[in-house]
């Protein structure tokens, strides 16, 4: 926690006494000459909702990708319940951290139920032989998977859309389905990348209720969001990133009133606005694509 702001003492329900679940230390992500994430720390405790805000191109999603192993951070380490996470998405999920995506990435031609069942993949064991021979173990596990997936769909309020193809579902439902799929991996920490993007106020309120419900069931949640009202309602703690660096970390009240945050979002008015954010996004995109091409299509 290199930031000077004392973030844990302010809010009455800041769960400072609870165990640390997720701990990222000095995460740096460089793409060529561009530093997208620069020495960011993050600590998430049990039952906490942490918000991640910042203008476009601040490196929020890149930071998420570093946490979940989609990118291998240039420097720094990520610990979950004390163990260092390898930068492999599969291992991260098995360790207990799951995520949703900014631009929804469901399995479009699978049903809602199947999508969630895929989420159970890392918690089930039946192999090819079990499947071919339909062993009792396979049948038992398959029944459990189906039951759990249905439970989760009910939990997020999609219990009646089980057999719909994901791509035929309304936008808000797709976001909720992605959350159900992430929950199916039995995570301890849930990372949500702009869960209310493109939602109307009603759907946003639903999403807020859902995230509180998830928190109350004992999970820690990290949320990236641009909707400030949403984030300041929801979060116990908020981290503001600007150009890859931590600008401030603190309670919603502290962050909200900090002049630097306002400045970062709307500029100071003297022409020293941050770089054109879209431009930074485009740069990162181009770098990532170039790297993926070099590595032969695997990110």
């Amino acid at each position, binding site marked *: 926690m290199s930031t000077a702001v004392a973030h844990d003492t302010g809010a009455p329900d800041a769960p400072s006494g609870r165990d640390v679940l997720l701990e990222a230390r000095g995460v740096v992500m460089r793409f060529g000459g561009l530093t997208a994430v620069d020495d960011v720390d993050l600590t998430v405790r049990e039952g906490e909702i942490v918000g991640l805000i910042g203008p476009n191109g601040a490196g929020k999603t890149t930071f998420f990708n570093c946490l979940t192993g*989609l990118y291998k951070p240039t420097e720094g380490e990520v610990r979950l319940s004390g163990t260092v996470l390898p930068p492999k998405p599969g291992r991260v*999920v098995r360790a207990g951290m799951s995520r949703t995506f900014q631009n929804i990435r469901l399995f479009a031609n*699978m049903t809602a139920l199947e999508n969630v069942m895929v989420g159970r993949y890392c918690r089930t064991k*039946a192999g090819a032989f079990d499947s071919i021979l339909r062993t009792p173990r396979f049948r038992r596990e398959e029944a459990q998977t189906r039951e759990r997936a249905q439970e989760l769909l009910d939990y997020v309020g999609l219990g009646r859309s089980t057999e719909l193809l994901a791509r035929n579902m309304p936008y808000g439902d797709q976001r909720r389905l992605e959350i159900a*799929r992430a929950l199916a991996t039995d995570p301890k920490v849930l990372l949500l990348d702009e869960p209310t993007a493109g939602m109307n106020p009603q759907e946003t309120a639903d999403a807020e209720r859902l995230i509180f419900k998830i928190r109350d069931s004992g999970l820690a949640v990290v949320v990236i969001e641009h909707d400030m009202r949403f984030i300041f309602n929801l979060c116990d703690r908020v981290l503001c990133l600007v150009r890859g660096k931590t600008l401030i970390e603190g309670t919603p009240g502290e962050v909200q009133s900090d002049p630097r945050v306002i400045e970062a979002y709307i500029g100071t008015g003297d022409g020293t606005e941050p770089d054109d954010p879209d431009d930074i996004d485009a740069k990162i995109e181009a770098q990532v694509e170039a790297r993926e091409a070099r590595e032969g299509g*695997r990110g």
Partner: protein
Amino acid sequence: MSTTVDRADGANSPDSSAPAPAPRATGKGVPLAYAGSGLMTASALMSWCYDPDVLGDLTLYGNPAPVQLTMLVLGLLGLVLAMSAKGPLRRLGAGLDTSRGAFRLGLGAVAYMALTLAAITAQAGGLVNADPGAWVALVGSLVLVVAGRLGVSRPSRNIGAMRAKGWVEILVLVALVAIALLLVADGLTLRDPWAFVLLLLGVGAAAAGLAGANAFTWLGVTASYHSRVLTLAAFVAAFAFPLTQNGSDANMSIATQVIIFSATALGLNIVVGLAGLLDLGYIAFLGAGAYVGAILSGSAFATIDWQPPFLVTVIIGALFSALLGLIIGSPTLRVSGDYLAIVTLAFGEIFRLAMFNLDGNNGPKITNGPNGIPAIPELNFFGFDFGVTHHLFGIPITRFSNYYLLLLCVIALIIVIFSNLNNSRIGRGWVAIREDEKAADAMGVNVFGLKLLAFAGGAFLAGLAGTIKAHHDVSVTPDQYQFLESAFLLAAVVLGGMGTVGGVLLGAVVLKLLPEKLRFFSEYRLLIFGLLLVLMMRFRPEGLVASKRRKLEFHEDDEHLADKVQTIHLEEKTS
């Protein structure tokens, strides 16, 4: 079909808001439809030609030859359509688009008669040889087309939601399978290419009419309700096929080749259809199995003097093939899409060239190079010699029939493996990878492991089929395993319907059977298949048989779901 009951009004039918029990007869075309199909039916009982040597004997009144029987069936189908628009079969008509059905059936029949007249002209020396019957049939078909154009009746209800009593549905399915068996058995005996093409055209016309009337939608839904019955019936029919051949080997040899091809295509279907990995060198795995089978067969030309029991050979061949799959897969599966296609394409060629060169001069003597390994002995299971004719209830079971029955068991095994894998955690993982590899990875799906499993599993099944193919073909040479064969396998998968069993079987049968039967067109087969694939991609990209995922779009067996889909479509339209 008067027992049809309605479950739910479909969301997709054009006017589900007014669920009238009867079809909306637009009327104008109905009398014409009756007239047209009546003429077609009657024409079958008339003479079509003065010359008794053309297309069987078409000269007799009241005694239809096979070519005329086909027209009789088409005519009766037309009558059924007309009667379900306005007549005794009205309840059936509620779900049928008889306008479109009559139009397409008529068009098919016109094409059928055009070809028949062409055949009469060509073989009897002039159109003057055509008798009134042929002209009546042609006129009847044209009238049916006009009727369809004018409009017979439109469906008022989603046919996919119409269910008959269970036993009626099963009876329909079994009858269809039986008809298919008879058609195949009958069609294969036709020596006259004109007659064979005519039969195909007739079947095509009937299918076009039924598809136009939406009957296939009902069939698809019904088949998925009774999939076990259908599978069983299909297998019984397939097992019964050798019994219809009466000791003749000609068709059985084609049938065995079709089955080997189908089995391999099903293996490829795991790789391409489920896991979405484009493999252009798949034939190499069949070749690997065949070479193992040949080398361990005890042939005088085999380079290894060890002949294990055949079951052991099969397992060795399949495992060797799977091992090759692992070796080629583990470095290459990190690349995807086009790159993987290029690598596998190269692998297929490397395999062929390696087999070509392991002849003792350029490398160790393992495969005898271009000469291959000939004189592979017949299979012998516990004293059951596959090379000689056996008798079952007095019906001769020939050499090819023996192999056919064995291969049928193998393909049953492959189908079980395929569908059990498909409906499991593994299959879901594959589909997830195909849909979005990164998301699958982020959800904890073991992407690399599953890709490797698909690759090795597909190779295993191809190798298994290969070991039997070696004995069936008697000799194994490198030139049997060219790139073109891989391309044909892929074409069968794509044409039939990726990820399905029935579709791929159908695709394999079409691609293997037609060139065998239509020798005269074999020079143009690449041209025609290329064209066929282009047309398929344009008009029916999901393949002949759509997979369950595609079908889900049309399958609404509960009202809520239908409503939901409808509201979503509405939302999409307004947004």
